[in-house]
């Protein structure tokens, strides 16, 4: 197999590191023993984690994109078994045609199944359905010695729950079997609720009468004073086919949102405090103005940004950092308010700020979600001052008992990581038992001191 040495980054385009890549096309080559040298490695699907989770400066990066075969689809019972490189974008039209949908989906469909398991991703329905790993029936994991093992919640459960959320560090995820959820249409029924400030927004998100299967809130994080935390909460559920207007035709076929790709990097100055403020005003009025329940195709509802290919170029050449944290229910309001205050004090604008309620913590040892509220911010990287701000945000998150999401992270310190993930010892116990020589590592795992090379 040929290798390619190239500068590589995650979706945030920071950091950029020179990596040596291999791209197997056969399942048999998705194997540490097939890699030419004894270097350590990390599997990489679509490279949609934001930071350095799928980079490996000192070893190999194993691309799984060509190992993307769907192997078995039980259309009666809703089980899908596919190779880890298969993307949600490939899966969706296939399963929808038979009346099934993904049990959990992140905000982009251009992610691989393996990535979804490794990051134990969550969606807008975490408070109802938990994270991705809860719906994984089993995994075929390829271990450091080349053995293929099947693990599931009942078979080798420790290995399974170390792999779910384990950032690819227990082995190469080869195959994933997923339990799907039934739907009768490809459409969503959506209702927006406007909140004038953070307090109202929390009330709306907590209100059991308004609750729905999917819930997410957009925050105008430039609004200050009495308006601080103003935003729009968006609730939705799968629309029933029988309630759809006739003109939509086949209820299981929604017209995909067809968009254009951003063909170049926007200059860094385009997104500034002023322009983002203007956008936020516009968006607040537009989304807040939708008082009636409306129908939306699943693409537009779940993946609004997917219609702009390469939207990460919007933040200019230096890229951006996405900061996503969760704060437990008891301290969530104070914690989120403090984070927003800190952000506005530095006059750093986040183009996208999203607030979501998360349900009970799952079983993945390094999984991110815990019962509370999660805030996600996109912060363009202009100067190194950003990292100082993010360190202060870490400090606030830690003080409130929260944690930072590894799939988004590019800069968390090893110390903070260990304080945020209390089940780390359990995880590393499993890793040591299946990967004693540390064949699996990434730039992230080295930075966070995961394993024997800990600082």
């Amino acid at each position, binding site marked *: *197999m*040929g*290798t*390619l*040495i190239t500068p590589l980054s995650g979706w945030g385009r920071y950091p950029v590191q020179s990596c040596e*890549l291999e*791209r*197997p*096309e*056969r*399942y*048999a080559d998705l194997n540490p023993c097939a890699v030419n040298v004894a270097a350590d490695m990390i599997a990489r699907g679509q490279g949609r984690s934001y930071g350095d989770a799928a980079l490996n400066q000192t070893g190999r990066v194993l691309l799984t994109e*060509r190992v993307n*075969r*769907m*192997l*078995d*689809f039980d259309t009666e019972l809703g089980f899908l078994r596919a*190779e880890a490189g298969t993307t949600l974008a*490939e899966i969706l039209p*296939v399963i929808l045609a038979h009346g099934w949908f993904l049990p959990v989906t992140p905000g982009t469909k251009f992610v691989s199944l393996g990535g979804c398991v490794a990051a134990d991703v969550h969606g807008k329905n975490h408070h109802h359905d938990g994270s991705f790993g809860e719906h994984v029936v089993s995994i075929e994991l390829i271990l450091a010695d080349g053995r293929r093992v099947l693990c599931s919640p009942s078979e080798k459960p420790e290995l399974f729950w170390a792999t779910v959320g384990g950032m690819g560090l227990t082995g190469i995820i080869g195959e994933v079997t997923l339990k799907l959820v039934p739907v009768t249409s490809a459409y969503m029924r959506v209702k927006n609720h406007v909140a004038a400030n953070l307090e109202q927004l929390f009330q709306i998100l907590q209100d059991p009468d308004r609750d729905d299967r999917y819930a997410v809130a957009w925050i105008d994080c430039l609004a200050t004073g009495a308006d601080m935390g103003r935003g729009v909460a968006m609730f939705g559920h799968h629309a029933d086919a029988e309630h759809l207007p006739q003109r939509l035709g086949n209820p299981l076929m929604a017209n995909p949102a067809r968009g254009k790709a951003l063909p170049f990097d926007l200059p860094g100055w385009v997104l500034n405090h002023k322009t983002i403020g203007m956008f936020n005003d516009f968006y607040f009025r537009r989304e807040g103005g939708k008082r009636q329940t409306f129908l939306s195709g699943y693409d537009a509802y779940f993946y609004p940004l997917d219609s702009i290919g390469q939207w990460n170029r919007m933040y200019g050449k230096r890229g951006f950092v996405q900061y996503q944290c969760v704060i437990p229910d008891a301290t969530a309001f104070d914690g989120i308010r403090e984070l927003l205050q800190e952000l506005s004090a530095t006059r750093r604008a986040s183009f996208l700020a999203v607030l979501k309620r998360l349900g009970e913590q799952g079983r993945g040892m390094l999984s991110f979600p815990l019962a509370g509220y999660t805030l996600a911010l996109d912060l363009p990287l202009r100067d190194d001052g950003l990292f100082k701000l993010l360190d202060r945000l870490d400090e606030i998150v830690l003080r409130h008992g929260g944690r930072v999401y590894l799939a988004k992270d590019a800069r968390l310190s090893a110390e903070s990581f260990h304080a945020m993930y209390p089940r780390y010892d359990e995880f590393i116990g499993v890793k040591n038992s299946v990967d004693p020589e540390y064949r699996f590592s990434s730039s992230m795992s080295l930075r966070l001191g995961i394993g024997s090379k800990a600082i």
Partner: protein
Amino acid sequence: MSKSVLILGATSAIARATAAAFAARGHGIYLAGRDMNELPRIASDLRVRYGVEVRYGTFEAEATVTHAAFLQQVIVDMNGLSGVVLAFGYLGDQIAARDFSVGAKVIASNFTGAASILAECANHFEPLKSGFIIGISSVAGERGRQSNYVYGAAKGALSLYLQGLRNRLFASGVRVITVKPGFVDTAMTYGLPGMFLVASPQSIGERIARAPERSADILYLPWFWRYIMLIIKHIPELIFKRLKL
């Protein structure tokens, strides 16, 4: 009338993309190849994605004595065939030029094996007065270069063979299409220096599956390779022999 397509050498990236493009058009697919770990995976994938009938079986290009029986079995299994795509090929490496035992394998696979199975296919389609035969050759077969002339010679011979076959089968209305891909993003080219204008296997597969509906006999993929090769073919030998290509 069967709508099935036989893909010979079905595990390469181009073959997989071609099979997918035919399956997307509703054709049944028979995958022929050597890798019995990969074939069932590709077959399942095509069934799940496109809901068509897919079968697979072992095919050895170099085992020419097995070809007649192999094709008969495929025709029985698929209840007839509408076309065949010859997608196997063996690049070998530079040693092929100096060590004839390696070079012989390159010729045996790319030309002798191809000629053998194509003869069977032609004999099958000719009396039916319908069907298509698509042979994937290479732009490497257009001019001999020191870097891969054994492969180039075998592919060049294949191109000539397909040309003759086209001439023979024209009267019976059987299409014979020669495909000449340039650089394609496959395991064969991954990480190689000097690659440019690299096409995705999907775009190549889509073009190949469209070819039977179109009139072109010789297809350069992507199209601009026709002009690149036009230039390369017209460099005087006096100069060409001095180039490091």
